[in-house]
């Protein structure tokens, strides 16, 4: 199942991205379209077959993985700001875009490059799972999990307030799915506790996180469309 899950996730994200093209062309919330494109691209690069091809072009030193990390950082930066604004949490917007957030992002970015450089990364392998895992690679992987986790932690309270509020049911369900996706990212901070033999569990958590986040975001869009339609029909 963990071999199929990445592809399923990719198809779902791509479908949502394509579905957003018309509204992006009309100029409605282009940022959301870019966020979905970034997520789809990140998922695409993270899957073994495309990863090996792309990393092959880049010299087979897992620079592809480094690019993937920064794609994810960018995705979470923009997505975090957008979601925090949407859910009306000024404190979360400040935490992500303010001095603290920029500092965290900068430190994570610099340390990611640093740990990448001091590790022997020769030999393409998706998720760098084929390499010898020393402390520097562990630290590199930790950075990759930490920033998305940081953004997720900033967003969880505001989203939870909406899930527990009197908002329309569809919106609450969609927000709940988004919350579930982001919570899985928080859970992924515990990855070092998962033994190597149970690597499928990491794959499961990572891709379900992406899947629930995307479905949640798309669900919010859907709930809006449903509400608009209902309003049109009732007037």
């Amino acid at each position: 199942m963990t071999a199929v899950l990445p592809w399923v996730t990719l198809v779902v994200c791509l479908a949502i991205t394509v579905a957003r093209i018309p509204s992006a062309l009309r100029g409605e919330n282009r940022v959301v379209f870019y966020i979905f494109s970034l997520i789809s691209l990140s998922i695409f690069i993270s899957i073994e077959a495309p990863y090996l091809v792309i990393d092959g072009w880049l010299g087979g030193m897992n620079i592809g993985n480094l690019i993937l990390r920064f794609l994810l950082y960018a995705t979470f930066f923009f997505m975090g700001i957008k979601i925090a604004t949407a859910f009306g949490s000024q404190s979360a917007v400040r935490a992500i875009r303010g001095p603290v957030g920029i500092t965290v992002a900068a430190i994570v970015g610099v340390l990611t490059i640093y740990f990448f450089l001091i590790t022997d990364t020769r030999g393409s392998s998706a998720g760098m799972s084929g390499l010898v895992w020393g402390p520097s690679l562990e630290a590199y992987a930790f950075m990759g999990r930490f920033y998305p986790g940081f953004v997720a932690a900033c967003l969880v309270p505001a989203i939870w307030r909406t899930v527990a509020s009197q908002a329309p049911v569809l919106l609450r369900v969609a927000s709940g799915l988004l919350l579930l996706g982001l919570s899985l990212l928080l859970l992924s901070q515990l990855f070092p506790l998962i033994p190597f033999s149970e690597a499928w569990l990491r794959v499961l958590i990572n891709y379900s996180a992406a899947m629930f986040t995307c479905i949640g975001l798309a669900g919010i869009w859907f709930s809006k469309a449903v509400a608009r339609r209902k309003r049109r029909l009732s007037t």
Partner: protein
Amino acid sequence: MPLPSKAFQRWLHGVAPDASTADVCRIAGIKRTTLAQQLVRGKVAEPTLVSISRGFNINPVQALATFDLYSDLRGEPVPPTGCELVSQVATIDLLRAVVERSEPGSAPVARLSEPPHPTSVRNWVDAIDDGELRHRVSDTTGIAPQNFSAHLTANRLPPELAIATSRAAGVGPAGGLVAGGLITEAEAGWPPTARREALDRMSQSELVTLAGERLLALGKTLRRQEQDHERTERIWENLG
């Protein structure tokens, strides 16, 4: 705590010994799956019993009274107090009454709309509350005060809680069931003109003060709804 399904089936057998489940559901206008599910779970919801009673032309209050949980309902119906009656007048009807009283003959007397209203439950509890009622209810039923408040805000009153509340307030047992929308005022034994008469008995100052209180509460509710609406719109504006 809904009705135990064993006792419910005994009751149903007494009411409609020959009717099949399908007949019962058709006559009562309820879904077969709903009833089946409730029977399997061993707990039948009160509205199901009320629908079936109505379908078979039985007074739902008397039907409920056959269950031990609702033994308070047995015997002659206790007449509602004036406050209870007025609490079940819709705010808009109350405002109309203020206008009628201030400008006699200006508008024809409109019929009062039937309870429940959007704030029936809170109005009823406020009307019978001596200041300590909520504490007594939470002491006897074990319901946390904030959960009781949540029911009031949502304009919900589970039947068992309604009974416990009226018992704690020392009023007739059926009032809460009317406010919660389980039964109609006629089924509770309230005379059809009782609410209008209670309204007419109020002095103008009482009427205006009550209308003012209702408007204040309505303003709060509307403000909360508007804020919720704004929050929803902001989410859709940013992510939709």
